[in-house]
């Protein structure tokens, strides 16, 4: 087991644009918005940045390919800018690269920034994108809602859950996120919803209705990282440090063998196990104060609680109905509204999750501030349940 990155790297500053249908903003504007806030928070000038990692998913719309869109939009001082793309987990990958560069000593200060400009595509939901020349010849012209909805059919069968009960439990997932998002001025969706609204919404992909699906948004988020001693030398106190950064990627076992039962995300369990080990966490449900998970769909959040070990096998339905993950529950989840309500500008989402953990750990989360959180976990999933990239990151107060 490698010694890991626990407490080797600290967050120097973060920024996040307002998410939503940003008809007023270009991708460059969104980048500037997140970058300005992060730089002001860090209290550094551009010359102090040693390297940048840039996450954006869709290169055929929005920003374009390579590292130049970020370098040019932010007029960076000719430092290396590397584009990172790993489906919806790209933001977490950009963080990982920046953190590793700092931990290695190759950089003193590095920035990771993610951006996505989806609302110029004309699509409601994610745009259609190309997947090579072979896959389209046999693979269904599938969309994300139906790929994730399949978790529900398999989960229901495995745990023998009454479909109506499961539908109510996933409704609770969204009701909770809407309640949280309403308190977040940067969130895409800021209105509370009722159970009746959620249950009666039009079906997008059986059994998921409109409110079971995350918003598709424009937005950007940025994080500046450095070594703790440098942060302290720059006058920072109460540091938030990285405890674990783990990524697990499918190898075809779920998709092509007959062993996976379709009711959970295999890579999430592996990434979580490794992240807990790296962070030295032995009892996640007791030690993790709060989470931001990849709630692209309500059912994803539900099974993720079991994958992360925060719910027992088959117990997530009951836990959600009991409010375990509500803002005033045992382990609050999506305190900022999550993908569901903060929004999901793909390349930025992993960094947006970290942004909320950072604000909460620094006591800067305003009306949604939790009481004395110590450890925060982000779970960022790209692809689909049967074939994906899963990132689990853990941050916390220095020394905790």
């Amino acid at each position, binding site marked *: 087991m490698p010694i890991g990155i626990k407490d080797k790297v600290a967050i120097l500053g973060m920024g996040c644009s307002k998410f939503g249908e940003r008809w007023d903003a270009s991708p460059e504007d969104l980048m500037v918005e997140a970058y300005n806030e992060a730089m002001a928070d860090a209290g550094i000038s551009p010359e102090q940045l040693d390297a940048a990692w840039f996450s954006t998913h869709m290169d055929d719309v929005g920003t374009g390919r390579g590292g130049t869109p970020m370098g040019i939009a932010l007029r960076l001082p000719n430092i290396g800018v590397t584009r990172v793309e790993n489906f919806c987990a790209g933001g977490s990958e950009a963080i990982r690269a920046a953190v590793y560069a700092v931990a290695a000593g190759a950089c003193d200060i590095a920035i990771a920034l993610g951006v996505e400009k989806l609302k110029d595509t004309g699509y409601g939901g994610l745009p259609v994108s190309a997947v090579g020349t072979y896959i389209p010849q046999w693979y269904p012209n599938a969309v994300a809602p139906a790929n994730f909805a399949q978790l529900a059919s398999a989960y229901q069968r495995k745990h023998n859950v009454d479909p109506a009960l499961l539908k109510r439990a996933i409704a609770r997932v969204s009701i909770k996120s809407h309640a949280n998002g309403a308190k977040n001025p940067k969130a895409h969706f800021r209105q509370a919803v009722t159970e009746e609204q959620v249950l009666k919404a039009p079906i997008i*992909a059986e059994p998921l209705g409109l409110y079971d699906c995350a918003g598709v948004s424009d937005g950007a988020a940025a994080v500046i990282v450095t070594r703790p001693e440098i942060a302290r030398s720059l006058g920072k106190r109460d540091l938030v440090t990285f405890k674990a950064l783990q990524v697990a990627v499918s190898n075809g076992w779920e998709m092509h063998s007959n062993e996976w039962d379709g009711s959970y995300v295999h890579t999430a369990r592996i990434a979580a196990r490794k992240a807990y080990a790296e962070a030295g966490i032995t009892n996640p449900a007791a030690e993790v104060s709060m989470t931001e998970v990849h709630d692209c769909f309500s059912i994803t959040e539900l099974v993720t609680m079991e994958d992360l070990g925060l719910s027992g096998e088959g117990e997530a339905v009951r836990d959600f109905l009991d409010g375990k993950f509500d803002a005033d529950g045992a382990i609050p989840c999506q305190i900022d509204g999550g993908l569901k309500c903060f929004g999901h500008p793909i390349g930025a989402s992993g960094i947006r999750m970290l942004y909320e953990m950072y604000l909460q750990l620094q006591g800067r989360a305003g009306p949604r501030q939790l009481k004395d959180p110590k450890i925060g976990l982000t779970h960022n999933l790209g692809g689909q349940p049967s074939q994906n990239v899963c990132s689990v990151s853990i941050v916390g107060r220095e020394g905790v």
Partner: protein
Amino acid sequence: MTAGITGYGSYIPRLRLSRQAVAQANAWYAPQFAGRKGTRSMANWDEDSITMAVAAARDCLGAGDERGHIRSVQLVSSTLPFAERLNAGVVCEALTLEEGVEALDMGGSPSAALSAVIGAMDRVNARGGDALVIATDHRKTRAASSQELDYGDGAAALTIGSGNVIAEYLGGATLTVDFVDHFRMAGEEIDYHWEERWVRDEGIGKIGPRAIASALQKAGVEAGSIDHFIFPTTFAKMDAQLAKACGIRAEAIADSLAATVGETGTPHALLMLAAVLERAQPGQHILLAQFGGGAQAIVLRVTPAIQAFRPARGVSGWLARGVEEKNYTKFLSFREQLRLERGMRGEQDRKTALSTAYRHRAAILGLVAGRCEVTGAVHFPPSRISYDQGKPLQDTQKPHKLAERRGQVLSWSAESLSFHRAPPHQYGQVDFEGGGRILMEFTDVAKGDVASGTEVEMSFRIKDIDELRGFTRYFWKATPVASGADTTASKE
């Protein structure tokens, strides 16, 4: 041993368009169809002459996937999707026939199917092996035309060989006469028809009896001893008139399937034959005649071996599987005669990389997976490295056919977001008997037909239509096995 029929199969699409629904939709314009009853078969949007041919051939060849005995394939149709590209080649790949098979596209007249049968008899007699003759049609008709109501979609297949013959070929006759009852120029989509009375009296009434008499004479069989008379026609009582003119008993006239299926064109004589053979008794004589470009007739005698042969599903099975369709606009839309709004997701480019398609043709067209010889695990698509956790083996996979294996749905969903010609778009993970898993589309399903655990079988279908370049690509889809018992009205 001389050549004869050794097997038969058929295919009738699941949807049956209600003629009343068509008549009512068009009543303002064509009130003359108000009294039309029954249904006609209607291909799903993802079916064409190639996919139906594959289905009929599978019905004939049965569940086994060892098909090395087939030495030639004749694909007969007036509606083959490709004018340039061997359509029979697609069928051969889908059936995973050996590369050494001779394959040929034929067509041009409804009588081409019987020509192919006669040709196949000659081929088998000359060179041995078994021949597969498949006839199939998916014809476009003008809205509010009588053909729209009379025609149907379907396919039929025969194997011709010299061992275990179930119907001996006693003789046949061909008359080639350029009698143009209907025509369609190259590049056109819809047939043009001449007056019915002229076709009846001057065409069928005069040319038909000559071909039939000649065939009976060559076969050495009296007209009166014909037990099953097969003559496809859309003209009311034309079969009876022809039988009477030829001295064939009225009770020998075979059911035209007009009430349920309609007249399917090139395959129709063989489709009727497939229905007749399901109940024919040893020693009975069958006369098939077909009008078009002149006339064709062949005479068969059923042997005791008939009792040992059953098609996989058969005409009766396909008929039982039918679901009445009352949405006339669905029919028009499936035939691209009504352009429905598709939304932005319908703009997606469906370009096919032909080099990729060729490299993976066994997987795509034949649904051939790779089975690891060490662990027995089945991989689709086949790969050099197996997925076995912790011990990835290399280059251990051997071809493993999945098309004739059943599967079970692991997980599924039905969504209304993507562009799909028959929404909701349903797909899910299917686990195959004997191993293998594919995330695949479901077809011939209504909402509620699929659940986790549903048993499915494979169907060769259109995957995508590239309208920009005019190219159709094919793959396999899953359809519930239980749909065979569903005879209720369409829930779609």
